[in-house]
């Protein structure tokens, strides 16, 4: 392999593969929450993005408090230590909203669209809470070691022109996402409560006629969703930064991910997360340098299909295409 090819590969890994896998894992965790709510509670939860912000916010507040107490995890971000608090607060939030809002409509057997509208209300309230408590601005809360692999060190070690950077937060995102997903699948496939959730999602009438306690199923679902959203929110925040509005915007790619994969299917949400992440990155990346390495000559223009300003439009396009071409998504979703 020529040096140019290797340089091209490194460039590809650095700007597309690594960010894609990281962003994909974050979206997948978010989409899993959406898909679980859809499968078990049967509505599209528009408050999901802001719930994510809420969980991340409490993790940040706890992180700051821990930092002020001089507690740290050494090379790892202190936020990991604060994560359980964020998850617990989010669990309280979603369960309180369930009791105050969704429970009523569930008892009325309201149409799904009623739930969706209710969730828009919940979204505004959550959003208000977050802005009220932490404000609308950007917050940095990542501390500890910054890089797993540094571009400079990589270049020195390999003697290549192109460097590879892997941030610690990127590595953490992928590891934590994999562990969370494995736990989730184990839970759904093997445990009695997980099976009860699947049963309830599959056939509610019948579940009610068995010993399945719907209240328990609903609470368990919210608990899992709280954990998944907070994880997604914190990992995204550590990787980029925390800003309430960004989390609201993430709603679109997360929904796109859930729907592409087949809404209601956990595996689909993961698949969808990566599809959306890579589409966004592949369509907004400027290929000038990469083509230069491969063709031996750099093109005049940037060779960028879409400006990065349009990255949310990518999710939108994916949504439109999927809804037109295969509305049930890749895995033919509906139930888990």
């Amino acid at each position, binding site marked *: 392999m020529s040096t140019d090819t290797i340089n091209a590969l490194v460039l590809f890994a650095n700007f597309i593969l690594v960010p894609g896998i990281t962003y994909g894992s974050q979206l997948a965790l978010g989409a899993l929450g959406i898909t679980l709510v859809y499968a078990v509670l049967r509505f599209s939860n528009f408050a999901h993005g802001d719930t994510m912000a809420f969980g991340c916010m409490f993790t940040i507040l706890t992180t700051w408090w821990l930092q002020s107490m001089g507690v740290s995890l050494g090379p790892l971000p202190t936020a990991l230590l604060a994560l359980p608090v964020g998850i617990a607060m989010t669990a309280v939030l979603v369960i309180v909203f369930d009791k105050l809002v969704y429970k009523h409509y569930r008892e009325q057997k309201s149409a799904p669209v009623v739930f969706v509208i209710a969730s828009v209300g919940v979204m505004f309230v959550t959003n208000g809470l977050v802005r009220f408590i932490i404000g609308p601005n950007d917050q940095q809360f990542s501390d500890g070691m910054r890089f797993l692999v540094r571009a400079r060190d990589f270049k020195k070690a390999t003697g290549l022109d192109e460097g590879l950077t892997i941030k610690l937060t990127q590595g953490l995102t992928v590891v934590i996402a994999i562990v969370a997903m494995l736990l989730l699948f184990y839970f759904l496939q093997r445990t*009695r409560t997980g*099976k009860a959730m699947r049963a309830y999602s599959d056939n509610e009438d019948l579940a009610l*006629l068995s010993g399945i306690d719907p209240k328990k199923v609903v609470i368990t679902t919210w608990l899992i969703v709280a954990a998944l959203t907070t994880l997604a929110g914190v990992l995204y925040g550590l990787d980029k930064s925390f800003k309430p509005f960004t989390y609201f915007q993430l709603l679109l790619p997360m929904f796109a991910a859930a729907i592409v994969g087949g809404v209601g299917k956990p595996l689909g949400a993961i698949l969808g997360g990566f599809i959306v992440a890579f589409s966004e990155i592949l369509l907004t990346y400027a290929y000038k340098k990469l083509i230069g390495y491969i063709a031996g000559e750099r093109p005049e223009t940037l060779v960028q299909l879409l400006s990065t300003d349009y990255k949310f439009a990518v999710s939108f396009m994916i949504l439109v295409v999927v809804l037109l071409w295969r509305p049930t998504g890749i895995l033919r979703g509906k139930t888990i």
Partner: protein
Amino acid sequence: MIRVENLVKHFGGVKAVNGVSLTIEEGTITGLIGPNGAGKTTLFNCIAGAFPPTGGDIYLDGERITGLKPHELFSRGLLRTFQIAHEFSTLTVRDNLMMVPGEQPGESLWNACVFPTRAHTREKEISDRVDDIVDFLNIKHVEHELAGNLSGGQKKLLELGRTMMVDAKIVFLDEVGAGVNRTLLNTIGDAIVRLNQERGYTFCMIEHDMAFISRLCDPVIVMAEGEVLATGTAEEVQQDEGVIEAYLGGGRKVAKNTDAAS
């Protein structure tokens, strides 16, 4: 055991059940027959809590149960099967059955983590029961299949299997026999009788197969157009003029008409 008083259920303009009063005595296998659209399934749905009746009351052992939710009735020992078989299509046949008994220790995260052995003992018990049932119903070879892939008749068997998973007081069977082959139908009949005699289950079953009804049921209640037409033993109702006209013997009625025409 079950007492229904003046039960009414309207769907918009359709009077599906229109003032039904009946009792189901403890220990009986009560048959419920009647033409299509007579309101039999609707009556079951009201009793089993699928939807609240428009009017009237239902009592279980003297206690009013009108409007209770299906799972509340389940915990009181009132079970039902569906005319159109319901199953958890994405769970295996085995898991479908394992799902039925409520209050399993493995269900609470606390118990599952802190007393895993307790959860295991109970799970073993339930699992043994599942073994017996799949053997009994001849569905052992498909126990690890997804229930959604079963044939229509097998789904019916699964429905019946579900009711055998717990100690029920009263079971409402909505055409368990429909779509099941003859030999198996007899086996199911035997199972019902055995559950009735050995475990003291009370049954109320809707069925269109008159021979099957005659063999198992006493008394038999006949419904037509949302009302109870007759009650009695299988022979009695088969002799009943009104019943023959409305349900059993279209033949006689046609004969009469041709007489009149000629």
